[in-house]
């Protein structure tokens, strides 16, 4: 009710207010060749009133009557200011340059000119992400913003990605940045549990006009308690007032292929290594051959599981959009369809989106902005995301027994394995993938309504309300046609329903004023409230008469129901003041006071603040004569932001239901209280320069930053003997430092005779270190081994140094703490090895164009980090289990004197009570590997037809293109995909058989009418 009351009050107060004097200016913006510029910016000088041109290069802007200059700008063009006369139509012709300093940048709750910005913000425009066949925009901006490490957690279509802005500052609290789409703070709940799902899938990347990434404290502190991990602001496209309707259609079709899969043994190699394991464990050759056949028998049955499970798949996208406007209203509306099959059997992802964006001037000084989108996503046949799960196809595609064909001579499924041995829980993986239903359906709506009111010139009041609603329904059917499911439960259906409602509202007052022309002030005051509620419900039924039954109604036995819900709320007030003197000196101060329901009553509120300074040296007289400098600015910022991304009820002591006995519920303490639980704070210092040299042929920015996360929140282990089920408690343990340097650089190497060659890129170096642990500790342990050590990065591996296989007897050895090889290490021999957080990362873009023809390539890289390849624990264990092995394992130790890294095969890999793979400890460096890589991420060849050749069919633009994604990877990693594995390791856990990224080829066209 309160929300309704709020809107009511707002509507009321705005409607009764008088109109204010304005005039409407319209026109076109074009380049010197007369090509119309789409998305160019118009700004009424001295105000924050601005717009961009539509698809026809046209704009309409309501300008306060006292404004007499319009400023025009566009990336790659020199800015232009035009004095307004009596004429209401103002056309601008911009001269080409590489200047980016006059773009309008979206910042927290307002917009600014890039020239005046004193914070570290990367802005990515739609042309850098448009048309890429990725499902969420985070993957499209990977490597395109310095200081922002984005890496896929899963190669699944629509799979999740991890975003880290300026290092990893936190462990138990979330390290994900806050993502705000058109003012709506999107949540992370309500996603499908049937495989990896990216919370950003609900937004069609082609609807995005720009993405701003706020990196330093001065830009993020306006978001207070949510600012510590950085902010990503997404702005979707709009139409242009007074513009005729434009219709744009884009179509793309292509294939997805697996890349770099493991090579596994054939039936003979497999029979040979298994026989060796049998014989070395005291079993007979006959027993082995009964199961696996004679290794010398060339006629052993053979089935290529890998070939049957991995596949070339299809991708297809179809987008269309309309935009335009009248003199009071503009609109952008779009629909899209996106199909992406996974490169693994039956995996498929489909999305349909719709969007409607509307800006309407209700009165001269009162306007409304509506942004609304709806997405329906269906993940079909989605296998689990990886892991040692037998009913998930990744591991079984490699380890299924090669002499056990999936089909019999009639084409029916064989029982697996055909030798009757217990392996893979007797799942025939092909049958499993084909017959098990794993369907996730997700409906997401992200909508925002903003009202703007200008009671007097320079004062803008704004009220906004946004909602992010997700409803996910999962269905998993385990049919009786699969023996395991038939015998255990008579088949099973699981339905899950998740709803997440996440809404926020804010109001701001912005007042701009000048003192004696040279001193410009812009002030902002606002409040915000946010509430997140989610519920999950699931029901399981068993006993299905037929494999084709897909609904719970068909289950004869209700088996289980479960339901859960949670909520959290935040509120805050904030204010900022920006000051500039003669467009030469800038200062900015921000403060926010925030409260969160997640913290204990005594520690609920936190104060966050920041300040920044800017000096445009290029505006100084002493540099006016230095012709090669077009723009040069030094920025300095410092501030404190917070992180409240912890569990909703982390501070409270809890008793929860724990099991039943004789039908009555049991109760047990599930968690201990921590009354002292307080905010995690990030203190950040940033010094940066923005520059443009040599007639704007070389431009970019460099930032040096230092970030201290204090009162780091960590779920610390307590002794299990204390007897608490969740043997951890969240405490503020200490301080982590991240520091780094970020480069963003663009050059125009050649631009003559219609031939244009540009190179640009980003490069970031970062260093992460735990600098202090509370209570004088130098180490915090988890599961018996160090988790945090003062002086070490936040992530590292605890491993035994592998010392190779003893040529004398074929036993695996590791180095003990004194550096001597041993068969039987103890926990004290485990050492710390470098972890999975990269030292550097970035991207390099190059683009050639000649007239309508263009060729672009984008390389993305990460380096200096390591991972433990868990896959090999199953695939490189010298035949110690029935798992099929890597071909390289055939080189196992046979006779004294053999030099090899593959130990002597034995059942279970146990020799004299010692596990040869893990030694009963957290593993060895045998499977530890450099995860650095550079990847040709995107390559695109396009041709835009000349306008003249199109006029006869009334087409204003036609582009055809072919593109490839993830084309080539250069790496020393010994697994499939270094990107997804490292992401999992650094930010969650060791994770075997993660869904790797695929290689994609596609072609398509864009057409506008």
């Amino acid at each position, binding site marked *: 009710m*309160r929300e309704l009351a709020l809107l009511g*009050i*707002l509507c009321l107060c705005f409607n009764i207010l*008088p109109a204010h004097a304005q005039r409407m200016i319209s026109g076109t913006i074009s380049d010197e060749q007369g090509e119309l510029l789409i998305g160019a910016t118009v700004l009424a000088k001295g105000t924050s009133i601005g717009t961009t041109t539509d698809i026809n290069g046209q704009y309409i802007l309501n300008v306060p009557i006292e404004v007499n200059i319009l400023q025009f700008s566009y990336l790659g063009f020199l800015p232009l200011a035009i004095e307004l006369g009596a004429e209401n139509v103002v056309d601008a012709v911009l001269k080409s340059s590489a200047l980016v300093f006059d773009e309008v940048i979206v910042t927290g709750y307002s917009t600014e000119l890039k020239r005046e910005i004193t914070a570290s913000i990367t802005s990515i425009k739609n042309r850098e992400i448009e048309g890429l066949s990725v499902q969420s925009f985070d993957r499209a901006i990977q490597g395109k913003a310095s200081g922002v490490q984005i890496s896929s957690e899963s190669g699944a279509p629509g799979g999740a990605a991890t975003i880290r802005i300026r290092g990893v500052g936190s462990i138990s609290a979330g390290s994900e940045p806050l993502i705000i789409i058109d003012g709506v703070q999107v949540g992370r709940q309500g996603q499908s549990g049937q495989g990896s799902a990216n919370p950003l899938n609900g937004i069609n990347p082609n609807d995005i006009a720009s993405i701003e990434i706020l990196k330093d404290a001065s830009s993020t502190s306006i978001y207070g308690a949510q600012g510590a991990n950085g902010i990503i602001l997404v702005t979707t496209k709009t139409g242009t007032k007074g513009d005729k309707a434009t219709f744009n259609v884009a179509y793309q079709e292509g294939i997805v292929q697996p890349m770099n899969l493991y090579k596994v043994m054939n039936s003979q190699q497999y029979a040979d290594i298994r026989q060796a394991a049998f014989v070395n*464990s*005291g*079993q007979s050759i006959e027993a082995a051959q009964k199961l696996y056949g004679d290794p010398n028998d060339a006629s052993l049955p053979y089935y290529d599981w890998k070939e049957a499970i991995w596949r070339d798949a299809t991708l297809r996208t179809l987008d269309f959009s309309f935009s335009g406007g009248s003199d009071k209203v503009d609109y952008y509306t779009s629909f899209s369809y996106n199909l992406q099959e996974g490169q693994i059997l039956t995996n498929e992802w489909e999305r349909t989106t719709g969007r409607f964006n509307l800006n309407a001037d209700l009165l001269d000084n009162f306007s409304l902005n509506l942004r609304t989108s709806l997405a329906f996503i269906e993940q079909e046949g989605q296998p689990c995301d990886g892991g040692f799960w037998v009913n998930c196809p990744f591991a079984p595609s490699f380890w299924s027994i090669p002499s056990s064909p999936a089909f019999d001579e009639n084409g029916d499924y064989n029982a697996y394995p055909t030798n*009757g041995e217990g*392996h893979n*829980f*007797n799942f025939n993986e092909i049958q499993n993938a084909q017959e098990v239903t794993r369907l996730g359906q997700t409906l997401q709506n992200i909508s925002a309504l903003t009202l703007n009111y200008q009671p007097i010139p320079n004062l803008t*009041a704004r009220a906004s309300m946004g909602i992010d609603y997700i409803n996910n329904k999962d269905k998993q059917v385990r049919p009786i046609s699969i*023996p395991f*499911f038939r*015998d*255990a439960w008579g088949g099973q259906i*699981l339905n899950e329903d998740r709803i997440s409602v996440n809404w926020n509202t804010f109001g701001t*007052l912005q007042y701009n004023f000048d003192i004696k022309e040279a001193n410009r002030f812009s002030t902002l005051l606002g*409040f915000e*409230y946010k509430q997140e509620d989610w519920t999950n419900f699931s029901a399981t039924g068993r006993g299905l008469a037929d494999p084709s039954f897909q609904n719970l109604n068909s289950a004869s036995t209700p*088996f*289980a129901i479960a339901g*859960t*819900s949670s909520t959290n*709320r935040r509120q805050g007030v904030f204010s900022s003041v920006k000051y500039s003197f003669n467009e030469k000196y800038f200062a900015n101060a921000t403060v926010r006071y925030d409260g*969160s*329901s997640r913290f204990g009553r005594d520690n609920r509120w936190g104060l966050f603040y920041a300040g920044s300074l800017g000096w445009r040296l290029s505006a100084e007289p002493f540099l006016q004569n230095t012709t090669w400098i077009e723009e040069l600015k030094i920025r300095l910022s410092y501030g404190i932001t917070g992180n409240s991304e912890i569990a*909703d009820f982390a501070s409270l*002591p*809890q*008793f*929860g239901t724990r*099991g*039943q*006995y*004789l039908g009555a*519920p*049991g*109760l*047990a*303490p*599930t968690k*201990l*209280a921590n009354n002292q639980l307080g905010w995690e704070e990030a203190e950040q210092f940033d010094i940066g320069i923005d520059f443009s040299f040599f007639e704007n042929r070389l431009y970019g920015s460099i930032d040096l930053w230092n970030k201290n996360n204090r009162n780091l929140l960590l779920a610390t282990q307590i*002794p*299990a*003997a*204390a*007897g*608490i089920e969740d043997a951890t*408690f969240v405490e503020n343990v200490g301080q982590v430092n991240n520091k780094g340097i970020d480069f963003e650089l663009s050059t125009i190497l050649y631009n003559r005779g219609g031939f244009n060659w540009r190179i640009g890129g980003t490069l970031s170096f970062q260093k992460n270190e735990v600098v202090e642990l509370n209570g004088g500790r130098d180490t915090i*342990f988890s*599961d*018996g*081994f160090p988790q945090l050590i003062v002086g070490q990065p936040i992530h590292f591996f605890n491993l035994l140094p592998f010392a190779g296989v003893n040529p004398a007897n074929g036993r695996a050895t590791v180095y003990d703490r004194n550096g001597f090889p041993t068969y039987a290490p103890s*926990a004290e021999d485990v050492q710390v090895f470098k972890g999975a957080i990269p030292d550097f990362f970035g991207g390099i873009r190059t683009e050639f164009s000649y007239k309508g023809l263009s060729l672009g390539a984008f390389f993305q890289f990460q380096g200096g980090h390591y991972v433990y390849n868990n896959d090999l624990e199953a695939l490189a264990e010298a035949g110690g289990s029935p798992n099929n092995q890597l071909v390289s394992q055939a080189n196992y130790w046979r006779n004294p004197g053999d030099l090899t890294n593959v130990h002597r095969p034995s*059942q279970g890999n*146990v020799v004299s*009570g010692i*596990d040869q793979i893990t030694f009963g400890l957290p593993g060895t460096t045998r499977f530890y590997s450099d995860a650095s890589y550079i990847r040709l991420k995107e390559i695109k060849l396009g041709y835009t037809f000349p306008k003249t050749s199109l006029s006869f069919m009334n087409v204003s633009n036609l582009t055809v293109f072919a593109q490839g994604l993830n084309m080539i990877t250069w790496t020393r990693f010994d697994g499939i995909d270094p990107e997804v594995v490292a992401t999992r390791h650094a930010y969650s856990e060791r994770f075997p058989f993660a869904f790797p990224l695929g290689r994609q080829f596609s072609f398509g066209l864009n057409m506008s009418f």
Partner: protein
Amino acid sequence: MNSYNKLYFLLLLGLFSCTKALDVADPESLSPEQVFAEVGGFESILFSAYNRVHNFEWMGQNGIIAPDVLADNLDFNNRTFNYESEYVNAVRAHMGRWELYVGINDLNLIFSKIDDLTDVTAAEEDLRQQIKGEAFFLRALYYHDLAKVYGYEPGKEVNDFNLTVPIRTTPTEEVSDALVTNPRATNTELYELIESDLNQAINLLSDNVIAPLRVGKATVHALMARVQLYKSNFAEAARQADQALTQTTAELTTVENFEASWEMTPHPESLFEAEIRATDWSTVDGANRSICTMTNNTSSSSQYILVGSPELLAVLDREPNDIRHSIWTVEEDIPNGTRKCNKWRGEQGDFRENIPIIRYAEVLLIAAEGYVRSGDDTNAQTRINELRMARGLVPTALTGTALIDLIMQERRIELALEGHRWFDLKRLGKDIPKTNASNVPNLSYTDFRILSDIPQSELSLNELLTQNPGY
């Protein structure tokens, strides 16, 4: 109008800055105060402690199977990674029981808070005494299993190493309690606590009515008998066993119903039986976390990896009339000389079945062993012959060492796959024989692998703990 405008905004700010908006409650949790307000709350905590007995890591699977795999009762029929390292007594492949402390904390909460309840009715008072009695029994059961795994029995120390697990008798209510660390107690200290708990339980519990799914007085005597046996306090073991046998309503099965009794719920011989319901398991627990999935092929999704070893069956085969042959069946596809065990068949469906923790035959065997080892062959014969006749065998007239051997042989056969073999050897200080098929040498009693290692995670969090020798 401008002033109105500002007023409205101020009003809005006011609306949202009331702190109450930030007070939220967890819909799935209770505060400790709510739980401790009624006797019913304590009973719920007790139920949680009962429920943990059938945890897969304890008697739900590992506690039944590991003691036979670590010794010589079982061989492999199939391999699914499970129990492979236990089979060859790999270093650190032992029984981990540290999580029993979670149940102990449940019980400590009861002890520390239940007497604070005031204004209780007479019925509630009875319930309070019963809850306390059951809680003392359970804490003794939990601690005795910790003692069996992590330390030597009193009098059976190797190199005088007498440390066992730390004793915690006060609950963890807040973080500061959790961080209070205790050193390892000596085995005699721990056994004193166990006996004291059992004596309190005997005093508090009235009768047998609620057995076997909850415990009565007879059950406490039975556990006391077992504890005395482990202490090599044989006469007292026999005396306690006899008390249990007299008081219990459980009945010895006969030749007629022995085989069928393994399909019955509860088992007619149970003095204490852990109850499992469908809701206790997630969908994948059956195939992974049941007993029968490891030892039987009732379902095609069973792992069915372990079968009776030729060494065990050779003992059984000494007397062909033994009715216990009925639960060991020869199967085609399993290694020669091995047989499938049909004690555990998941008769409640989805691999589920109740788990007898203490049953009549065990108590009879304790009585027989207690008598014979304390020199009373006559009474020992009576007890063992009661069992032998119920199993279709002729009474024995053996005495002395021969009678001891026979009783130990009966014990091995009768209690196979019920979690006793390893501990029966260990408590007597005997070497652990290994099966021929395991291809590993016998484990000497002095080998460090007789004791489980203390979890590395505990050592790193509690500086007062010391690791067991050899690890």
